[in-house]
């Protein structure tokens, strides 16, 4: 049943992404409800999948890299639906869909470890810490996507050529604001998650600790520099995109180091 839900959500997003590419190819890319509808449906299917997986594992289903990748796809969709739509940024759904799809395809096709590790201690604080950290990463993922849209719109405006993307992407000022607010949200959630980790008194691998701390510090620095007007919106967008790449690359390592030996 879990596999069925996962496959259904992947196929749904694949169709939505294919449709967006078709519209793009035929020069009719316009903000629409297709991606939103597909993401709502995928969110419901993934929620069902996580619930069933959680029942089997008797814990929040983030006990293997396979689980973590699916949870990250779910949290990115969640942040898009809760926060992204509040900004009413046209085409944000079109950018979110391929990222979520990529995560789901990686979960289904990449040789990821699927066997749930048995945690030494089922501490609710650790569960809370781990799941909230992944939701924070979902916010950072959305911030990275808003950053990517900012850079594309900046390029369109600098090129002075007009065109389909220029007219359909949101105003660059709105993208800059969404970018920094999503970073704020991610940082706030990650701070709470770290707080929960400290409360639990969990033993943390040194490399995992410093990698997580580096991510927190990088985003905190980004916000501070932006607040004191040292960092221009374009650089903020570039750095948030780079940070997203870093998170996606280090996610397997962090999960590996979190697994009890």
């Amino acid at each position, binding site marked *: 049943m879990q596999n069925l839900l996962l496959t259904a959500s992947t196929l749904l997003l694949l169709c939505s992404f294919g449709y967006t590419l078709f519209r793009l190819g035929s020069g009719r890319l316009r903000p629409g409800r297709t991606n939103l509808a597909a993401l709502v449906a995928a969110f419901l299917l993934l929620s069902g999948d996580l619930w069933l997986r959680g029942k089997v594992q008797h814990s929040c289903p983030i006990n293997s890299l396979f689980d973590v990748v699916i949870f990250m796809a779910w949290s990115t969709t969640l942040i898009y639906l809760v926060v992204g739509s509040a900004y009413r940024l046209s085409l944000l759904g079109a950018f979110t869909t391929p990222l979520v799809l990529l995560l789901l395809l990686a979960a289904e096709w990449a040789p990821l470890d699927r066997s749930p590790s048995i945690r030494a201690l089922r501490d609710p604080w650790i569960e809370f810490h781990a799941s909230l950290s992944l939701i924070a990463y979902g916010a950072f993922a959305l911030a990275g996507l808003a950053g990517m849209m900012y850079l594309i719109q900046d390029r369109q405006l600098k090129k*002075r*050529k007009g065109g389909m993307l*220029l007219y359909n992407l949101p*105003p*660059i*000022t709105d993208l800059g604001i969404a970018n920094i607010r999503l970073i704020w949200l991610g940082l706030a959630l990650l701070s709470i998650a770290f707080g929960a980790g400290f409360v639990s008194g969990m033993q943390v691998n040194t490399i995992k600790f410093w990698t997580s701390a580096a991510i927190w510090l990088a985003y905190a620095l980004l916000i501070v520099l932006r607040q004191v007007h040292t960092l221009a919106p374009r650089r903020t967008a570039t750095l948030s995109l780079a940070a997203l790449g870093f998170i996606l690359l280090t996610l397997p390592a962090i999960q590996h180091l979190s697994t009890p030996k």
Partner: protein
Amino acid sequence: MTILCAGINHREAALEIREKFAIGNHELVETLNSLRGIEGLSGAVIVSTCNRVELYASSINPAQVLQSIRRFFTTRTSGLEAPFFTEDSLPSVRHLFRVASGLDSMVVGETEILGQLKQAYSAAADNGATNAHLNKLFQHAFRVAKHVRTETGITRGATSVGSVAVDLAGKIFGDLGGRKVMILGAGETSERVARSLVSRGVRTVIVANRTFDRAAALADQIGGLAVHFDHWHTAFDEVDILICSTAAPHPIVTRQKLESILRRHSERPLFIIDLAVPRDVDPAVGNLENVYLYDIDSIEEIARQSMSIRQAEIARCEALIEAHVADFMHWMRNHPTSSR
């Protein structure tokens, strides 16, 4: 029942002729009432805009009604003949659907005409001048316009310097409410662009011109503030949009000058519209971060691009319209008569 159409539009006649046919709002009811007196005419809608004066009518005796309408126009214009008449339903319906979709407009794809058609229909309906066929026809025309707009790129992009500037400003700032504009050189085009921006909610307009009186006059007209040309940079703080159109032979806004001004400008974007030839703004300014520089060529290129996109969409629009015309004609065949 037959739908017929008569009148004059920008394709057939110049403005001097069209204005003789114009029917103002104040005389609309009276005109509709006199048309309703024509024997055999079941309903009428008058569309009178700057580009067209057209009458859509329904009748069971189209040839006779058309003669009366011809006489009506001739009498109104002291002898001028309206050049455009169709007494068959098919071309009349097709024409209305094309008009509603903006295909018959001077600027292809413009959407103002749809609002004008809605007003015209509403005025006629309120005065009891429409019947079931005309009601159905106009409701269908509004649906066609929406369908064409949604499914094709006929309304895409801006096609004039002013509207391109407004569109670009929208893509940079989003809401233009509360934005500040500075005009360097009070030329005709810069004035038009500034007016377009003001109509979209721009808060403050500062005008600087070599002749201060001209700056003051323009500022007065558009509710702005005039400053001496030599002091433009001191009034530059918080300016979001700069429109340049001076007759200076050399760039007056250089990268060096702007960099020092932008240090006080926080990280807000700056949109520069350089309408001057020779250019007022050093092209190197466009490389500055957060500065978006457009000269007259790039703005006109975007307008041309939009127009060619619209032209390329015409065939798709016509295909959609034909399908709707066929639908409507099918309905007409099934409803040959109607009451007023």
